[in-house]
């Protein structure tokens, strides 16, 4: 199978370049990550992140044939050749397929991704009813791989100002959490032309989310909640 990989080493290159590879796949090579591991055995200078290799950690998010995905759960079968592997678009490249996630996590931290509740804690835990727990479905599953944010045009246009689909999905996850008491504070923070309202509902986020989530819908629900509270 033929591969075309984005290569950039700031110590050796002034500009990034594409490098071609040819690989004889083994029967056990099912996913793009399997091929990458085998390619690294050929050329140990290829740099990429990986960890769980089962779509849980989000480390190996990259652009595969023009579409953001996790290498560990993207099947090799069906990919057109040469398979192009590039770092997540719009993120600063550290080396090869490794990108700098500093801005991404700064946005994530800005939405205060934890339950805010100053009420005295109960003896054991803050309980939720099944219905209250149900509201977190479709939100809590985000693994922060950044596939969505990196594929979102408003995030390309305003990387430092628009929080991006991942952070906003997480914001909604805490706004609807029955144990959280900070919804008003969160919504007040989000009511900003850049942080929230740059979303143009392009839906790239939902299109590429490896967990099948819909950040655009979460963003719309934040807007509706803001509207409901201000009515």
């Amino acid at each position: 199978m033929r591969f075309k990989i984005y290569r950039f080493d700031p110590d050796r290159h002034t500009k990034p370049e594409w490098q071609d590879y040819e690989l004889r796949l083994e029967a056990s090579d099912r996913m793009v990550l399997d091929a990458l591991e085998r390619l690294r055995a050929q050329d140990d200078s290829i740099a990429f992140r990986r960890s769980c290799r089962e779509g849980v950690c989000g480390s190996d998010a990259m652009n595969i044939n023009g579409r953001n995905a996790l290498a560990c759960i993207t099947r090799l079968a069906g990919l057109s050749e040469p398979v192009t592997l590039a770092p997540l678009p719009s993120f600063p490249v550290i080396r090869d397929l490794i990108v700098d996630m500093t801005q991404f996590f700064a946005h994530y931290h800005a939405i205060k991704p934890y339950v805010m509740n100053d009420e005295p804690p109960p003896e054991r835990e803050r309980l939720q009813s099944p219905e209250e727990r149900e509201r977190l479905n479709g939100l809590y599953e985000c693994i922060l791989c950044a596939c969505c944010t990196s594929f979102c045009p408003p995030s390309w246009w305003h990387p430092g100002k628009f929080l991006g689909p991942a952070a906003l999905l997480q914001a909604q996850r805490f706004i609807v959490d029955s144990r959280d008491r900070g919804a008003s504070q969160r919504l007040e923070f989000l009511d900003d032309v850049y942080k929230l309202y740059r979303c143009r509902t392009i839906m790239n986020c939902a299109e590429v989310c490896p967990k099948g989530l819909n950040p655009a819908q979460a963003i719309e629900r934040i807007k509706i909640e803001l509207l409901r509270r201000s009515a």
Partner: protein
Amino acid sequence: MRIFAGQRAFVLQRISALVLLACGTAIALRLAIGPQVTFAQWRTWVAQPLAASVLLLVAGALFIHAWVGIRDVVLDYVRPLALRLTVMTILAAGLSVLAAWTGFIVVTHAL
């Protein structure tokens, strides 16, 4: 007042879109189904206070919708701050003049 407030623009854009949709549909239906309207009939219709009010409402919705829409495009694509402010000032001034002119024409005709 926050000029770039998020929710205000979001709400104004949607309310103005609803006004334009309703009036646009009514005008399209009238033109498609009703008898042909002459210029004299149109002037007579606009001279009625209720019709003039509706026309002013539609024109207001149109200018607000245009402002929010073009402002969004400028925010997304015009990156240098000085250029952005210049474009938005020209845009706001142009739309204000057009709105004032529209209002002047409709009101003076109706009076």
